[in-house]
């Protein structure tokens, strides 16, 4: 194919259809007798206490934020890693400077205690 991404698009379409087939089979073959007890929320056999939307620990958000910064950084590093073979040593040093700046950021985050607990 001229455009290999078209192939991947087709793969995506079929890859979404394939899991749906057993679900449809199950819809026709399985019994369907809902009643309130079966549909109640599971909490080890007892009634649920309180709303089922727990307070989320804010530390998760901080980890997601740090992850975002490093994700963007690795995206920048991919073309560098690819082209490094054809470039002089100076290019490698530039990439190393890039990584060192962000490692300094990670150390700063660590020292400020933001990576404690999750």
């Amino acid at each position, binding site marked *: 194919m001229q455009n290999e991404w078209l192939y991947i698009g087709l*793969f995506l379409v079929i890859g979404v259809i394939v899991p749906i087939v*057993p679900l449809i089979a*199950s819809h026709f073959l399985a019994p369907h007798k809902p009643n309130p007890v079966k549909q109640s*929320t599971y909490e080890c056999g007892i009634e649920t206490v309180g709303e089922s939307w727990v307070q989320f620990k804010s530390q998760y958000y901080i980890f997601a934020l740090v992850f975002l910064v490093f994700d963007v950084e690795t995206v920048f590093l991919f073309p560098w890693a690819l082209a490094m073979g054809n470039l002089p040593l100076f290019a490698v040093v530039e*990439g190393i400077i890039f990584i060192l700046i962000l490692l300094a950021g990670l150390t700063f985050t*660590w020292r400020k205690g933001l990576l*404690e*607990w999750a």
Partner: protein
Amino acid sequence: MTFWNDPINLIAGWLRDVFMGWGMTAGLANVITSLIGIIVMILFAMLIAIALVWVERKVVARFQDRLGPNRIGPFGIFQPFADIVKLIIKEDITPAGADKVVFNMAPVISLASVILIWAIVPLASKIYGVDINVGVLYLVAVGSFGTLSVIMAGWASNNKYALIGAFRMVATMISYEIPMVVALMIPTIIAGTMSVKGITEAQSNLWFVILSPLGLLLFMISAIAELGRSPFDLNEAESEIVAGFHIEYSGMKFGLFYAGELLHAFTFGGFMAVLFFGGYGGFFGLEKLSAFTWLSNPFIELVVFLVKALIGYWIIMWVKYSMPRIRIDHMLTFNWKFLTPLAFVLLMMTALFDKLLAPTQFYVVGMFLSNVVLAWIVIEILRRYSKRERVEHEKNAEPVIQVAHH
């Protein structure tokens, strides 16, 4: 090109001729041939997933010194089919208050994201879906869809346990994506290309595990964490939150999650083989000898790839059934305070040494020794740190009450 040497292209060409003989344009014939190829590839992946159900249960049984399924068929081989039938005919209970659309989409997206990886898995030098030039990043991208499906499942279940499990699982998956991406960059640097087929071809003389054993270790640890398998399986900590984010899923939907997880583990085993152990090739230049040219036959390469992938999968299972679970805060601090700095230092070192040593003949030895030295330095640092912690801990400990001997 005979059938023996180039099966896929031969069949595709024949199919295209048949379709054009029926009067279709070249473009449409191409699309339909590709469609048939895609369906075959996906069916192959699903067959592997079904076989893996049996492999997993037998192996876990042997690890736990018992027999495993042995009733249905010889050695219990037909157990997965019994499982599939059971899951299909089980009632599908949607809990009250669950968000129906998101609840139903999550298992489909989870399995679809794993199936998508099989578009680029190089089964042999002539048997693969498509060879895109950014194969390595593609692996990370479909992982993001897996993350999304976890959080969709956890939120839509309207269940405290599911939500807690989903948060922990997503936090783990995104945190360990950084060391995994860096570990994927190391074969990219050494091979000079991001396509998985290119990386496999670059290993035809020497496996990358010899050039960068720490890279393999890094990839293995982060892959196990991405999969959500033990020792990182806090999302389904049976004793704590009973199956985590897929607690409310019954019947085939749970089956889709389960099959997706097994296939994902096998695919990561396959990628371990492709990135570090030479994939379908890697015969150390043996296939160039006239006595061994049969080694570059596509079918032999397919068998070699499957064997290596199964070994990788076995290692992942071995880790799962031998190690206890790690607590969530230990998991995340292990990643951000140890693995990520180690990964970046390893990346810088690999880049530097690859550039400096490439023209000389010390390349292999130099890269291997640099990894060994780095590992030794890291172990020394850890040893000093843990000794310091232990001394401090012992200073603060209560003295043991001496019991008088009579």
